């Protein structure tokens, strides 16, 4: 099962390597990991996507909680939540495909944010599935570069992960 774990962690040097080190030392897998400071500069927020059986994910959350720098965490899988990922794609274009590409980008609610005579850079946000689906519509040979941020997530409703 895929799990999205949101973590509030002290914004200290080495905090990221404690999390990454835990995963490699205990043989857990990380699908993606994003991190940035929050509105409170002493705290960072991490979003970690992992896969594993219920037992393994339970161990992962316990082991993460055990890290001294981790202040709080939730497994978003346990609650109603929203997930978003940002993707930038650079595509080789020819006159023939430009028109069609523009309409596909529109269907996926993406934006073309850079244009040259021979290329587009497309910006798109959405769930990771949606981004996969967009990539699948492209001709593989036309893709120059794909950059994905990894998923971030937040719970729906009034409640939230804060101090």
């Amino acid at each position, binding site marked *: 099962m895929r799990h999205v774990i949101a973590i509030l962690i002290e914004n200290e040097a080495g905090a990221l*390597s404690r999390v990454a080190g835990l995963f490699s*030392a205990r043989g857990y897998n990380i699908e993606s990991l994003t991190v940035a400071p929050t509105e409170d500069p002493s705290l960072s927020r991490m979003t970690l996507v992992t896969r594993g059986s219920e*037992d393994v994910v339970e161990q992962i959350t*316990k082991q993460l909680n055990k890290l*001294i*720098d*981790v*202040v709080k965490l939730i497994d978003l899988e346990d609650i109603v939540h929203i997930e978003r990922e940002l993707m930038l794609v650079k595509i080789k274009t020819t006159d023939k495909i430009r028109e069609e590409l523009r309409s596909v980008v529109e269907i996926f609610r993406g934006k073309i944010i850079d244009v040259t005579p021979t290329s587009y850079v497309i910006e798109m946000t959405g769930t990771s599935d949606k981004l996969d689906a967009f990539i699948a519509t492209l001709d593989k040979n036309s893709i120059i570069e794909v950059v994905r941020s990894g998923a971030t997530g937040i719970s729906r409703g009034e409640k939230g992960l804060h101090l």
Partner: protein
Amino acid sequence: MCHLGEKVKYFECKLTIIVHINVIFQLLEGGNVELNGAQIVIQSLKDEGVEYIFGYPGGAVLHLYDALFQQEDVKHILVRHEQGATHAADGYARSTGKPGVVLVTSGPGATNAVTGIATAYMDSIPLVVLSGQVPSPVIGSDAFQEVDMVGITRPCVKHNFLVKDVTKIAEIIKKAFHIATTGRPGPVVIDIPKDITDPSVKVPYHYPKKIEMRSYHPATSGNKGQIKKAVELLLTAQRPVIYSGGGVVLGEGSQELIELAHLLGYPVTQTLMGLGAFPATDKQFIGMLGMHGTYEANMTMHESDLILAIGARFDDRVTGKLDMFCPYAKIIHVDIDPASISKTVKVDVPIVGEVKLVIRQILEGLKDAKYKIDKKSSEMWWQQINQWRSIECLEFDRQSIAIKPQFVIEQLYEVTKGDAFVTSDVGQHQMWAAQYYPFDKPRRWINSGGLGTMGFGLPAAIGVKLAHQNSDVACVTGDASIQMCIQELSTALQYNTPIKIINLNNSYMGMVRQWQEFSYQSRYSHSYMETIPDFVKLAEAYGHVGIRIEKPEDVRPALERAFAMKDKTVFLDILTDRTENVYPMIESGKSHHDMKLRVAIGTTTDRELS
């Protein structure tokens, strides 16, 4: 010139005394004292109540050593290798319950300490390790004696810090002691760049009395609902067993465990790390469990319908093959660390909390409960257990003309009246010490269980002796293990820590040889050393007493002689039966009811009982 030099020295000495008096006055007045980083480190240790610091100097910690030199409250124990410092501090911590403190220099000093840090980590022992680091401006430049200590130790510490600001030292030290000693204890490393301890930079000093950390709140008492469930299971079980571990020792829960076990009347087994928390001479004690546990302990576990696990972590040396582990049992698991619960074995009633408090809660629950203990089924269960006991799985050949190692441990027990602190190294001798020295008190049995570190025993014994100067301290070791930290014999002389070294010398890495005998058709690949030193001469060279013992009848008198020499470290080199094996044994991949027992005396085949 010479005359002048002496005058200057005298003047300097006087000056430092005056500086000291000034500091004391400022402290008394409660005013903010100005100290340099090195002084802050040492003053913080003083304020934390640290008695001993085990260390070894070097470039990056010279400022710290200079600050140490100018005071006498924190006593420095100079070891001969940094691994010895960590083990000695560890032995001090295990035998007292107080944190052990270590000071090493950067680079090789720091890496030498890593084995000892990992040893403490695996057994949840509170240590605070101060390591020197190259000056902040050159960190990351591959400077002389630079290693990334925070990176290297990250997977084997409870937490670590790199000090970046001299004004933060006191707070970080307070945090380190707080983290090391609370919750599930463990080692904490503080890496201190040399510029942070610069004598010319002085800042106000204040050591916090208490510390709050928003990210760290260890559990205390157990969940009431879970306690209720546990009490109900405990009172309705037909074939219950209490399985307790090192957590009861660390959590000072021994008295509570004894009370609970006596109230219930259930059998108690303990892990290697738990020995002593419940008295081994109590009739409810059925011995250690696991790979080299007793037949009755392992069979009781296997056949039980309820396990009350307290401060134990279902380690692989305890469980054997996981999918055959205790097939009929419901499990209640009490532990301070939520991550230890349901890690390897799924449990039915998890209780997170301090063992002492949780056992108290269970005791209260039992007093209020509507059920009473079923005496009848308890009797039947004990009948079964006593039948397993009657196999006498720990019997050995007492007529042997070679010295049996088990006999030596039995004699050690008698000579010390069961009241010694016993440290050990790793191997067969460790198992024999655990099996044949019945510990009745916690913190008496000091060994490296989790990491299994050869070289632990001697330095640990020095740490124990410093803390318990009027008690007998024995180090049970083997001819291979003792050579891993033999240099600490020199430390033992310098600080006058008279310990008794019981070397069960079989001229083999016995435990390795045993596995090779059982699993590799006796192909003894590199488990034998042809050039074992003359330990008697070696002990004498280090300034101690050495005695060699070759006959069973000489064992007892030699032990008596050794322990009578109260102020001497004595090295007893005891030549034991080279072919002896540790029994019972659950070979890896097998389950609790599938034990290899000693060949019945006078027959030739293994007894495979199940």
